[in-house]
């Protein structure tokens, strides 16, 4: 083979790696819907921190479900007024019998579910009976324990008879968990929610967004917005960037109090500051010494300086509390003076208890309020002589260690549920407070229906918890919401912390592009992949013989088998229970066990492995635990972002690196070489996420040239999608390009020292000619090796970049799946990556053989 042919083949093989990825990306994109047209400004995009695990509020306590859907998609018989009292919703009025043992609700007429099913007393009875049934997984079912029977005497009357008086029953019925559902649609609500509210469910792009559309047949005043999209943005900085760049119109529960001041100063935004039902606690393990000693707990309370915690962790947002009760509630008693900050007194109490200078571990969940409060609390406790070691946990670990197994000394967490003081009466609750007097107070409260008496009891409850210093009571979590100044009538917060959209509207009419749901065409992508793979194999078989190909295929299969077994074992050791995590904080053990059974998690591990393998053989990856849709569809959706991004970054990196490397080698030691070496040195040194941060800050936040992140979907048009991927691709590609250029230059210079190059030079060949004809083919071998490595690194290694730019890609899917203990997704993605890497390595080997004939024999030997 003559050298120029080798070069051409080498370059062709080099682009083979990119071509394979690019082709699949193309297939995904081609199969998508045509570009959506611009819409009038009647569509809102709202950022929220957390994605709901499922969409059925009656089977999961996840706050994100209620936040998005309650009052919009689903409605209850009653709802909460701002002060926590019940007000009419689907029940327009009610009467309570004098003995408190019978409740009669008068239901609204002409209410229909989104699928046309009429709402009446029979559907209401169905909803409550379903919530109370023995096999119900309703996360709040114990709140209805007092109900003896649900009766439907006529079409619009619903009567509840009680076993005992239940003072909080009306408020309980306002919980999202007791939303009204219809018999026909209830089972599918997890993925296709059907309610009675002013908005209908339209689409859910997992890991990215959820879209609602207007319900024209709403029983009340229909909504003014045509469409509402909730975009999931967990990262505080991505939230900040998305708002600043105008990608979203509002953010509910904005996670970064430190940048609130900037939004307040900016005329484009309106900021709402309020309070939530979330009491933020320094939880103490009352079961475990020394926290079983009330003097130690009181000492901790004296050691805490709430003002500086709020100032430092929350930038001054949040109201200090002295007990487990929200200050905005009419029954609130201010007990913040009960343990005024006094480190000296704390030390005295510790000395008295014989616990001076004890050591403790503070286990913190992921949210920034907890992590930041933790650092300040640790410093404050240190001032009282308590040695605190901080341990940061993922949510699943926190739920497992702290919440379930009670293996902790101290923790910091916000208890977001309204009216949740009854958790102190639960012996099995994680902080382990057991007190007969307190239980008597809760029982008395349950029995009381008179408002005055209830208020008095609530006061006693607050004092009792403060006296016993059960936990360190820090602050009421603030509600911080940022909103486009042109968007009016949107309601944030409330007792259940919901986003109310029924009255929301824009006062300007400028068009904004809509984010329609994507329809991935998995089949098209699969066919194209198969065609590409087949062509490659045919080519290889013709060139190197069928034996070579058969051998490679056998190796491929063996690798996949080994990998799947290893992955399964590793993933199975990871502690944490997916069922527990999906059900969340306030779920009951019975409900968790039911869910475990439903998901098949109670089967033996090896049975689950065989099940999964059997599925893999049919290209069926199984069902995601969290999202409850096929894993294959989930991965396909994410690949639409990750593959193009990888191909884009790989292309950018190769395009930059090849000329730079060649130039540097050719002009070795001259200014051009020095410049290239300098630039690549710099490129190597810049972390891609930092580059991403800086790029987003310069081009999106400051200059507004491109959006700060997000992916509009391929249906929004090639140009929009391309633009959205540009900054992340540049951030990913630059460090890779620097590596590639360096390796290329280094290996070119190495080959230039070879005898054949010297011979060529002796024969009088020019520098460029030597480089091109003699050095490059050999130098491409290490380049190819590096390029093969970069493919898999880019494909899933972009987790951080995907988070910086909130792209719904593969890396983020894996990250979320691990955090959510969605083991089957982790397994499948990893096995798929193994497949991709082994295939790429196959291509790289082929290209080695193409470039260097000497390797061909040893390669097939």
């Amino acid at each position, binding site marked *: 083979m003559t050298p120029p042919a080798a070069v051409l083949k080498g370059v062709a093989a080099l682009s083979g790696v990119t071509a394979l990825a690019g082709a699949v990306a193309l297939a995904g994109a081609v199969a998508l819907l045509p570009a959506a047209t611009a819409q009038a400004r009647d569509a809102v995009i709202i950022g929220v921190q957390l994605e709901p695990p499922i969409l059925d509020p009656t089977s999961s306590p996840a706050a994100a479900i209620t936040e998005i859907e309650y009052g919009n998609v689903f409605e209850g018989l009653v709802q909460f007024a701002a002060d926590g009292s019940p007000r009419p919703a689907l029940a327009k009025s009610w009467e309570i019998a004098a003995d408190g043992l019978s409740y009669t609700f008068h239901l609204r007429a002409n209410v229909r579910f989104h699928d046309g099913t009429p709402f009446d007393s029979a559907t209401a009875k169905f909803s409550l009976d379903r919530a109370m049934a023995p096999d119900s997984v309703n996360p709040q079912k114990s709140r209805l324990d007092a109900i003896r029977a649900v009766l439907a005497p006529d079409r619009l009357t619903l009567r509840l008879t009680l076993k005992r008086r239940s003072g909080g029953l009306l408020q309980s019925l306002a919980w999202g968990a007791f939303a009204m559902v219809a018999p026909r649609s209830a089972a599918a609500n997890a993925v296709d929610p059907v309610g009675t509210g002013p908005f209908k469910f339209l689409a859910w792009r997992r890991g990215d967004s959820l879209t609602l559309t207007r319900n024209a047949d709403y029983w009340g005043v229909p909504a003014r917005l045509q469409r509402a999209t909730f975009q999931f943005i967990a990262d505080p*900085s991505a939230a900040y960037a998305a708002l600043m760049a105008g990608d979203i119109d509002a953010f509910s529960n904005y996670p970064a109090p*430190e*940048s609130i001041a*900037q939004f307040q100063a900016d005329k484009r935004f309106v900021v709402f500051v309020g309070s939530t039902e979330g009491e933020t606690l320094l939880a103490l393990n009352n079961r475990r010494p020394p926290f079983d000693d009330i003097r130690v707990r009181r000492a901790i309370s004296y050691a805490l300086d709430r003002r500086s915690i709020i*100032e*430092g962790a929350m930038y001054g947002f949040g109201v200090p509390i002295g007990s487990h009760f929200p200050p905005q509630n009419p029954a609130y008693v201010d007990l913040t003076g009960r343990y005024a900050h006094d480190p000296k007194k704390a030390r005295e109490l510790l000395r008295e208890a014989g616990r001076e200078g004890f050591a403790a571990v503070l286990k913190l969940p992921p949210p920034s309020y907890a992590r*930041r409060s*933790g*650092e*300040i609390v640790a*410093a404050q406790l240190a001032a009282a002589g308590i040695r605190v070691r*901080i*341990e*940061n946990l993922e949510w699943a670990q926190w739920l497992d260690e702290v919440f379930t197994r009670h293996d902790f000394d101290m923790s910091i967490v916000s208890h977001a549920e309204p009216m949740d003081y009854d958790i102190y009466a639960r012996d099995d609750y994680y902080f382990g407070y057991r007190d007969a007097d307190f239980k008597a107070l809760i029982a008395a409260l349950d029995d009381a229906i008179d408002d005055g008496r209830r208020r008095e009891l609530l006061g006693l409850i607050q004092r009792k918890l403060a006296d016993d210093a059960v936990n360190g009571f820090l602050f009421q979590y603030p509600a911080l919401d940022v909103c486009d100044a042109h968007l009016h009538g949107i309601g944030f917060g409330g007792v259940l912390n919901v986003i109310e959209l029924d009255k929301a509207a824009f006062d300007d009419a400028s068009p904004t592009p809509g984010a329609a749901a994507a329809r991935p065409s998995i089949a098209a992508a699969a066919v194209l992949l198969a065609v590409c793979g087949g062509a490659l194999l045919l080519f290889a078989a013709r060139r190197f013989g069928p034996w070579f190909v058969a051998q490679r295929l056998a*190796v491929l299969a063996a*690798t996949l088998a080994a990998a799947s077994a290893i992955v399964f074992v590793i*993933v199975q*050791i*990871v502690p944490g229970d997916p069922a527990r995590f999906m059900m969340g904080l306030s779920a009951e053990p019975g409900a968790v066990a039911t869910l475990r059974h439903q998901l098949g998690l109670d089967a033996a591990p090896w049975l689950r492995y065989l099940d999964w393998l059997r599925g893999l053989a049919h290209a069926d990856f199984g069902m995601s635990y969290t999202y409850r849709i096929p894993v294959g569809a989930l991965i396909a959706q994410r690949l639409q972002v990750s593959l193009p991004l990888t191909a884009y970054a790989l292309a950018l990196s190769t395009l930059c690196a090849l000329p730079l490397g060649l130039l540097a080698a050719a002009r*070795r*030691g001259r200014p051009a070489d*020095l410049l290239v070496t300098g630039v690549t*040195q*710099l490129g*190597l*040194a*810049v*972390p*891609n*996420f*930092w580059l991403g*941060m*800086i790029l987003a*800050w310069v081009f999106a*936040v400051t200059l507004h040239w491109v959006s700060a992140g997000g992916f509009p979907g391929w249906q929004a048009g090639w140009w929009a999608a391309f633009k959205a991927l540009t900054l992340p691709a540049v951030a990913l590609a630059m460090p890779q390009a620097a*590596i590639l250029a*360096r390796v290329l230059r*280094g290996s070119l210079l*190495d080959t230039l020292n070879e005898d054949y190059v010297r011979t060529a030079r002796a024969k009088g060949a020019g520098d460029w000619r030597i480089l091109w004809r003699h050095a490059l083919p*050999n130098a491409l*071998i290490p380049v190819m*090796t590096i390029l093969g*490595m970069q493919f*898999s*690194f880019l494909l899933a*290694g972009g*987790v*951080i970049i995907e*988070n910086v730019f909130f792209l719904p890609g593969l*890396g983020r899917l*894996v*990250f979320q799946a*691990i955090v959510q203990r969605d083991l089957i997704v982790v397994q499948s993605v*990893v096995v798929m*990556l*193994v497949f*991709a*890497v082994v295939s790429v390595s196959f291509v790289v080997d082929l290209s080695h053989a193409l470039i260097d004939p000497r*390797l061909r024999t*040893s390669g097939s030997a």
Partner: protein
Amino acid sequence: MSLPTRNLSFAIGVVITAVFIGAAALSLVWTPYDPAGIDILSKLRPPSAQHWFGTDQLGRDVLSMIMAGGRNSVGVALLSVVIGLGAGVPLGLAAAARGGGVDEFLMRGNDVLFAFPALLLAILITAVFGPGAINAIIAIGIFNIPVFARVTRGSARVLWTRDYCLAAQVAGKGRLRISAEHILPNLAALLAVQGTIQFSLGIIAEAGLSYVGLGAQPPTPSWGRMLNEAQTLTASAPSLAWFPGLAIVLFVLGVNLLGDAAHGAVHEP
């Protein structure tokens, strides 16, 4: 690289690396302020005479945190390269020396390992063993193994076809001996370059892990976590994002310049 250039880049590399390692070492005994010392009242101060790099959102001294954070970067990156070299080079040599089934087995085994992207592996490791610096070392180190193995194997296979290797074979030297006496010395320069790259990548990877909360845990300062915390403050306190980022860039740059010069000295005496 010409001699003056090499000397210059060597000098710059030495100075930068020495400054960073010196600052990290100094932080063991002295920093201007306690790097974990929270002082809410003086938070978000711009750079000044008292606080050369300013203070962060909790009032900690940024210079002190960067000094102490350097310890973390050096330790994690260095140990992870040691893991990668120690396991990857023998693997690559063996694969190239034995060829055939052994080669396939080792390299596909490597593929399986390599198919776990570093971050995914780190997340898995931290999920099992809990987050922390040690687990970051293991995660980055394991990721380094296939890198060294592949580079070693790729070039060793070429070297095996060289005349001197063939001659050694004919002379009856064993594969192990040839690998050690003829292949490895010829790979040293390439491995040094790759080692430098992996060390600097280790610094960056450690920063990345800390950035997503999987590296060293608070109150141990780390550059990545500083960047994470600075991200929402870029508009109001940009220095918080610039200083740790520039620290990473400068340190990595210094190490790379040093490595380049050393490579040149070995390779082009």
